[in-house]
């Protein structure tokens, strides 16, 4: 940003949040402003800290499952998947194929639901209110599918260590297929509303740029990293569940601005549709749960397992001392690490752009603060 401001402006310090509609939770940002330009900033977090890592040390492996729902509550099933797979890796459990396919279907639906919430709220923040209504209409259908699968709509507690709690109900496949058939048309609708909208382009193009090197250095992951042109998706690079058998592309951006992050997420929804379509076709019959001891007691040792959650790399580092409760659980929350990049992104931009940039990283404070 060029120094075009008046000479007699004085640097002021301003608080944005903790209660601000654009921060999607309780996030406070301390801003050093020169006129309306951000000189320096410091995100202040922790307002939603619940001590989840400490709680984990006082619960059995099974009891911790529902708490993982409360990390990133917009995509609960992804957290469940990361946790059960980490414990399975710790214990050396092989999951039946059918369970893996159902897991993939549920988590990909979750990814679509997450991106829909993101798109709706992001558009709403920038001023395109209509998109929010459309996005939540489709998300509702996905939540209905979840309700059919496990009875819950938001905090799913969807999977179990070793497989699933129960098989998919009759009519589930048809319902998912019906939604998947219709959904790509809705994505086109969102794009028609936004992708060439002049106001949208002015608010998002060349805003909050971060280069690939900076992004990797700052530990950015997920769509926010891919928008900077880094083709890294854990589903492809270190495939878990059955992702190595499914065909899909990794969308990437070029500039690494807010617009690219939007484009990447839109394209990811299309890829998720592709994945679900294949998974529905390829899903075999059979068992849905491996033989797991009634009391889960992993042998001593440690494991780090990460998955490609809708927001980035979600990892669980578990240390087991051989008892029924984990000795230590560390959650590598994508939102927490991604939020670090915020200061870099908003530097030199106007206060009004901060709203667009915070939205574009896609954070959930439940996961940032844990």
């Amino acid at each position, binding site marked *: 940003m060029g120094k075009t401001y008046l000479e007699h402006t004085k640097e002021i310090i301003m608080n944005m949040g903790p209660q601000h509609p654009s921060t999607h939770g309780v996030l406070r940002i301390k801003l050093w402003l020169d006129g309306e330009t951000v000189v320096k900033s410091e995100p202040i977090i922790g307002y939603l*800290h619940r001590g989840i890592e400490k709680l984990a040390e006082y619960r059995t492996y099974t009891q911790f499952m529902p708490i993982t729902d409360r990390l990133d509550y917009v995509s609960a099933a992804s957290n469940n998947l990361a946790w059960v797979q980490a414990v399975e890796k710790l214990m050396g459990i092989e999951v039946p194929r059918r369970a893996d396919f159902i897991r993939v279907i549920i988590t990909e639906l979750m990814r679509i639901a997450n991106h829909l919430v993101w798109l709706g709220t992001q558009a709403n923040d920038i001023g395109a209110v209509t998109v929010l209504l459309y996005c939540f209409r489709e998300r509702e259908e996905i939540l209905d599918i979840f309700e059919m699968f496990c009875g819950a709509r938001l905090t799913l507690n969807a999977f179990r260590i070793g497989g699933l709690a129960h098989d998919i109900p009759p009519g589930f496949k048809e319902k998912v297929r019906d939604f998947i058939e219709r959904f790509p048309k809705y994505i086109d609708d969102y794009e028609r509303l936004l992708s060439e909208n002049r106001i949208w382009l002015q608010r998002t193009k060349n805003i909050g740029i971060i280069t690939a090197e900076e992004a990797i250095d700052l530990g950015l992951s997920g769509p926010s990293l891919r928008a900077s042109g880094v083709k890294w998706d854990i589903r492809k690079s270190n495939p878990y569940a059955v992702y190595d058998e499914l065909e899909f592309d990794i969308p990437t951006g070029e500039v690494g601005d807010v617009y690219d992050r939007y484009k990447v997420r839109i394209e990811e929804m299309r890829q998720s549709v592709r994945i679900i379509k294949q998974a529905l076709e390829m899903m075999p019959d059979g068992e849905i749960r491996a033989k797991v001891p009634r009391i889960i007691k992993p042998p001593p040792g440690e494991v780090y397992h990460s998955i490609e959650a809708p927001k980035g790399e979600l990892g669980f580092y578990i240390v087991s001392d051989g008892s029924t409760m984990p000795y230590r659980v560390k959650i590598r929350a994508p939102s927490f690490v991604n939020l670090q990049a915020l200061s870099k992104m908003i530097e030199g931009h106007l206060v009004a752009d901060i709203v667009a940039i915070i939205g574009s990283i896609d954070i959930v404070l439940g996961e940032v603060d844990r």
Partner: protein
Amino acid sequence: MNNQNEKKALPENYEKVINKINNIFSTAIIEKKFDRGELTLTVKPEFLIPVAEFLKEEPELKFNFLSDICAVHFPKEKEFEVVYNLYSIIFHHRIRLKVRIKEGESITSLTRVWSAANWLEREVYDMSGITFDGHPNLKRILLSGDWKGHPLRKDYPLSGKEE
């Protein structure tokens, strides 16, 4: 499911990595472990920065992505294990670097190797009370500034008022 991860755990075999490190820093590695498809190296605290820089820059390794930093408390030994989970976006392999320090000892900050270490180290400081030398802004991150104690130490109570 886990087989894929094991295959991609390291470029060819992990012995090669260890040999390379041994050649340059002959006494750096205290312990090596290959378990569940994951390689863990425990290094001496004074070798943390050189080994980390080596892992990041070495053309065949390129661990350019710092995934996570975590501290584990062992009250019986009065020790902390600081655990660094590294990843290579180029080669898609993982490694775990560990450092053991006594309670009350400090450790060198990795912020000049990876910027991502900034908040992760602040969280470790906040939760376990380990200080990082050379950190640009070492203060509490999740808890408020006037909080007493460090909750993820094993002697910190689960409930009740702090004091």
